[in-house]
Every structure is written in structure tokens, then in C-alpha cells.
């Protein structure tokens, strides 16, 4: 593997019955990413449980509690690499009550693999997973029609499922959908193509994961730089140095560019782009850099630097958003919460809760109470102005979390409308 391979994050959605863990096990096994000691551990467990063959799904079982109960209770991350790319898999459980886990894992993913059992076709949970992928704005969706061996590798069955799925997906905000017939159990179209699906001419799953284009998964046009930390060495050597450290969340910036500081609205020019490895002429998302400016302007953490001639973000004390409630305690409309958005945290309250989306039917229900796993449309008022974009334009500056000040728990994840 060279130093210039790219990193792709993907998640898998589907239930144990769809063969999700077997699919991940197959990807790891056939791409030679399973180590001998891991393999011998799961062989022993398979034998103990009286299984005839090694159960590859055991590879993704992590904790003692899960192994005892044979369930997956949380998001687990797996790593593997091929000569072409490095991969991070967010493994999410497919159980009904785990919407929050899928939303969590999907929030950082470039791609979601949605698993279907070829015998069962498009189910309620397929719709749910697809809706959540579109809600969280996962850039690429792969529909993996698994267990093709159980339907005699029938092209007609595959076409039927794909037609039904595409009709459903067309109602949602998905930009890039791929459908692959496969058998995780037999290893057809996962890493190797196998011999049973000759009628399918598209890429096998791993080939797709290796080659799909992800450069434009971040917003490349409008420069957004939330200030994270102000670098003031106050040493003799760097007496007057005042740099603004952060990660470029979108777009690019060059030395000499005219920039606006928000929310103050003051303008200046980029003097230097400082990194440990030397100053840069141009930097782009998602690089972490330190920017110095031509004029002395009072800037602190939570401010955002944008390019003056780019599409301006909104600077307002409120917004509408879609939100996934993550906490066991229901939302209390009478309480104040904290919202953390980019590098700014502020008090907030919910001025209205418009509707809840039934993730199975996509129907909207008015005036809901908001419980764990609910997806709701809300209006939020914030104590101080936030600098934001709609989530559709920029995942980084359009997303926020809600924190309960009493428990310090993260209770909701939101996407600005």
C-alpha cells in the first residue's frame, strides 16, 4: 500500500438475518484482512456452538455481553485495506430500536451498503435504512441483494427487487445508487466475482468500494473555516504571532484571499497558512491548518472565517431542522438545552415541534411527543447567533448536536433545513 491511497468510510445496514455480519466477514476474509489468531478464536467459538462451518459473523461481535447474548449492541468500527484504498467499516445493528446507532454511524460515512435478502425483497426495514441514509446525507448508496444462491441466482428476481427499490428511492434525496446481486455465504460478487452471476456485468462489491469517486463528498466550492483554537505562543521568537487554528470544513483558501469573519462581518486578507511542515500557498478541506490574517481583528473560538466573494452562510439566532432524538428521556419543550454547532456551543430551546416522520411509512404525524429514535422536524431558537449552512449544502456547517446540561449527555443530532 502506498502513501497516497485514499480513505473510504462505509457502513452496513441490515439485520443479522440478511447476512450482514457474514458479508463483513466475507469482505475481511476474502481480502485477506483476517488474522490467524482472530480466525482461530472464531473457529473455536463456532465449534463450541455446534456449527458445521466457521461462522464469519462472529468476527464483528465485540463485547462479552454481546457474545453471551449473540447480539450486537452498538456501533463497532473495523479496518481493512487493499492496495487501492483503506476502509473503515461502521458496523451498525439492524434492530428496530437502533435508529440512533445507524444515524450515528452514517454521520461520518461516505457510503452505505443496504442489505436485502433476495427471497424477501424490499422490506419495511429496507425503506427505513434508505430513508435514514438520505436524511443523514450519505453520498453513495449500495443496495446489496444478498442470498442470491437461495433464489437460483435469478436475474429476473434481482431485476424485480431493483425496480421496486428504485421506485422507492426516487422519492428520497439520494444522488448515487448502485445495486449488486451477491451471495455473502458463497462469496459471489463480494471480493471475487464467482461463477454463478455471469449475467451481472457491473462491479463486485469490493471493486465498487475501491473505485467509487469520493472527492466531492465534501463541499468543494464555499470556503468554511470554524475557528477552533487561537494560537498565541507569546514566546520571544513568536512574540506577535496570532494564528487561528482549525480544520477547513469546506472549499479552499489561498494566501491573499479576501475573507470575512462571522458573525462580526469584519473583512481582511489571509496573510499566511501555517502548518508544522511549512507554510502553504493554498489549503483545502479537510486539512487542519493555522491561518494568520493581515489585520488585527478580535477573533475567538466559535467564529467562522469565510471567503468574502463566496456564497455567505446564514448568521441567525434560530433555524428549522430535522432531528433524531437519541436519549431515553423524551424531549421536554419547557427546558433549555445546549446546541453544539461547529466550534460554538450555545443555549437553545425548541420553539416548535412540527411533526414526527414515521421512518417505516414516511408519514408525518403532527404535534408529537419526542422519544428515543424519533425523527422530528423542529424549530430551534438559540441564545446567540450561529453561523450555518443548510445540511444539504454542507454536512459540517449544517449539522449540530443537542446536549442536556443536567446530565451532559448528547440527546439529539440535527440537520439544518
Amino acid at each position, binding site marked *: *500500500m502506498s*502513501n*497516497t*491511497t*485514499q480513505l473510504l468510510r462505509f457502513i452496513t445496514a441490515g439485520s443479522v438475518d440478511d447476512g450482514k455480519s457474514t458479508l463483513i466477514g466475507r469482505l475481511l476474509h476474502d481480502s485477506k484482512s483476517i*488474522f*490467524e*489468531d*482472530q480466525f482461530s*478464536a472464531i473457529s473455536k467459538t463456532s465449534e463450541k456452538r455446534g456449527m458445521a462451518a466457521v461462522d464469519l459473523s462472529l468476527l464483528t*461481535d*465485540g*463485547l*462479552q455481553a454481546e457474545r453471551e447474548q449473540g447480539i450486537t*449492541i*452498538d456501533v*463497532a468500527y473495523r*479496518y481493512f*485495506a487493499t492496495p487501492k484504498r*483503506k476502509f*473503515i467499516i461502521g458496523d451498525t445493528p439492524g434492530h428496530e430500536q437502533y435508529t*440512533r*446507532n445507524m444515524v*450515528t454511524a452514517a454521520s*461520518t460515512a461516505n457510503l452505505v451498503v443496504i442489505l436485502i435478502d433476495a427471497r424477501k425483497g424490499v422490506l419495511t426495514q429496507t425503506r427505513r435504512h434508505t430513508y435514514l441514509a438520505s436524511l443523514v446525507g450519505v453520498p453513495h448508496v449500495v443496495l446489496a441483494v444478498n442470498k442470491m444462491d437461495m433464489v437460483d441466482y435469478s436475474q429476473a428476481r434481482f431485476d424485480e427487487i431493483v425496480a421496486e427499490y428504485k421506485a422507492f428511492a426516487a422519492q428520497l434525496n439520494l444522488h*448515487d445508487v*448502485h445495486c449488486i446481486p451477491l451471495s455473502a455465504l458463497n462469496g459471489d460478487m463480494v471480493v471475487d466475482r464467482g461463477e454463478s452471476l455471469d449475467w451481472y456485468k*457491473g462491479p463486485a462489491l469490493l471493486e*465498487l468500494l475501491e*473505485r*467509487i*469517486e*469520493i*472527492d466531492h463528498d465534501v463541499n468543494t466550492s464555499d470556503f468554511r473555516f470554524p475557528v*477552533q*483554537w487561537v*494560537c498565541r*505562543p*507569546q*514566546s520571544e521568537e*513568536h512574540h506577535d504571532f496570532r*494564528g487561528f*487554528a*482549525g480544520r477547513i470544513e469546506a472549499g479552499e483558501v489561498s494566501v491573499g484571499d479576501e475573507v470575512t469573519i462571522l458573525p462580526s462581518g469584519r473583512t481582511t486578507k489571509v496573510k499566511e497558512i501555517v502548518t*508544522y511542515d511549512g507554510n502553504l500557498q493554498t489549503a*483545502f478541506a*479537510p*486539512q*487542519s491548518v493555522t491561518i494568520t490574517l493581515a489585520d488585527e481583528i478580535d477573533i475567538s473560538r466559535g467564529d467562522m472565517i469565510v471567503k468574502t466573494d463566496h456564497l455567505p452562510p446564514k448568521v441567525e439566532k434560530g433555524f428549522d431542522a430535522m432531528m433524531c432524538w437519541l436519549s431515553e428521556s423524551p424531549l421536554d419543550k419547557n427546558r433549555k438545552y445546549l446546541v*453544539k*454547532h461547529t*466550534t460554538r456551543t450555545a443555549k437553545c430551546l425548541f420553539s416548535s415541534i412540527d411533526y414526527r416522520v414515521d421512518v417505516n411509512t414516511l408519514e408525518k404525524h403532527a404535534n408529537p411527543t419526542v422519544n428515543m429514535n424519533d425523527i422530528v422536524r423542529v424549530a430551534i431558537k438559540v441564545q446567540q447567533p450561529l453561523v450555518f449552512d443548510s445540511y444539504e449544502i454542507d*454536512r459540517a456547517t449544517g*449539522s*449540530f*448536536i443537542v*446536549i442536556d446540561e443536567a446530565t*451532559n*449527555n448528547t440527546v439529539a*443530532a440535527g440537520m439544518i433545513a
Partner: protein
Amino acid sequence: MKLVEKNMSAHTLSHLDTLESESIHIMREVAAECKNPALLFSGGKDSIVMLRLAEKAFRPAKFPFPLVHIDTEHNFPEVIACRDKLAADLGERLIVRSLEDSIKRGSIVIKDESKPRNPFQSVTLLETIAEFGFDACMGGARRDEEKARAKERIFSFRDEFGQWDPKNQRPELWDTYNTRVHAGENIRVFPISNWTEMDIWQYIGREKLFIPSIYYAHEREVIRRGGNVIPVSHLVQPKPGEKVEVVSVRFRTVGDMTCTAPVESTASTVEEIIEETAATRITERGATRMDDQTSDASMELRKKEGYF
């Protein structure tokens, strides 16, 4: 379908640059939001990578936190020497607290000197956290190391007993981290969660990092015990019937001399280690950590007790 062809655009970050930027972002969040953070630094390869990432995050300023090492006093001398040298070269503050202090206080009772001391590190770590009032400790643990770590958040919340509750973790979305704790509680932060052993070696190579000599192949007196190659030291002596051999070995991980086994190797440069890492069929901890081989859930249990 849009597919990547050979040439990546000018605005594509390599996987190492992507991981580096993510880690810098995490460290800066800790520095900006936590009142009194610390960086756990052992002199091992992962924590040496953490130091370089901290330099990238905060230079030209000093680190906005001290380095802290919990010393079992059973560490390899080469590692301790490297720890002191790197801290001095960087001009950063290093706080060392020893298990011996806890033993003197009576908070640790050692029954068998030949047994690994790593399990007791949590006691001294919690005492050190209390002594300095740290609200966040950054560590160099990685998710690819172990099953329990694969399920842990980057910002991992601990109660006042330092306990990790795997079933009650804060959801972690996007790169928006919840750093809030009540007085007395703290968080462990793992900026290199998403790095693998291979990434670490590629980064050591790219950044030309100085690491303890025992990571490179060297001749060492060892004995073979229970499938492991075990280094002979003042703490580990051959039992009757065991034969001392001199073998070319290197360490993939470093912990206590009593529980860290080297692998047989002749790789004497980073490039050769990368080649071996690419070809190896045994996991990093599986090959080298006797403390993880006691049960399938050893790491999970130690984490619940307040271990990293």
C-alpha cells in the same frame, strides 16, 4: 458510475493526511474545551506518533497540556530513555507517577513480583488524575487493537471511579464532540482511534520519528513459554528445564517486561517493518501481549476498571 482513475485530483488527501487532520482536529477540541487536559505518554510508538500530532496541532505554541506517564517500573529501559529524551527535546513538561508510590501508599498490593503490573496501572492513573484534577486524558489507543476498543468512542466518558460503561456511551456524530463532564468525572480521548498498526508504521517512516531501539530487530536472550517468545530480564528468569536462546527479535508493542513478547524478526528499518506488517498473519496484541491472552474479554474488563 463515476470512478476514480489513476490520477487523484490536486485536492485529494491521502489516507495518512486524512487521519492526521482528524487527529489534529480532536486534539485542538480537547485543548479548547477541556479545562485541564493531559496527554498520556509512555515512550511507545503510538504515543510518539501522538507527540508529533500534538506538534502539528499546536506549534509554534507550547502544548496546552503536560505529558503524563504512569510508570510501572517494569518498563524496558530503552523505552524510558526514549520517553525522557523526547520530552526534553520538545521542551514540554513531563509528569511521571510510579506504581511504587501507590504501593507505598497501600493502594496497590502486589502479591507476585513476576506477574504483569499493567493491571495496576489504572489505580495509579486514577490517583494521578485526582492529584492534578485532570478532566481529560488523551491516550494513544487504537480501535484496530482489540475488540473492546473497536466499540469505544473517541471521547470516552468515565464516571468518578474511572469506569467505562460500554452499554451507556454517548452517541458520537459527525466530528462534533461532546466534551462536557461534571466535576470529578473525566473523559479519555483517543485521537488516533481510526489509525491501524500499518498507518502508525507508515507515519513513523514518513515523519522520520525517533522510536526506542527495541522496535527494530536485535539479538536478545529469550525463552519459549506457552507459545510465546519471552525476553529474559531481571524480572523473568528461566525456570528449570527452560533453555535460554539468543534470537533476532523486535517488539510490536511495548508494555511491561513481564507481559510483552517480541516477535522473531530481522527487520531493522521502518521499511522492512512495514513489509513484515503487511505480510503478518497474527494481530498486534495477539502476537505480543500475554495480558490479553488470559480471556476473550480481558481488555473489556480492564477498561471497565478504569484502564485506558
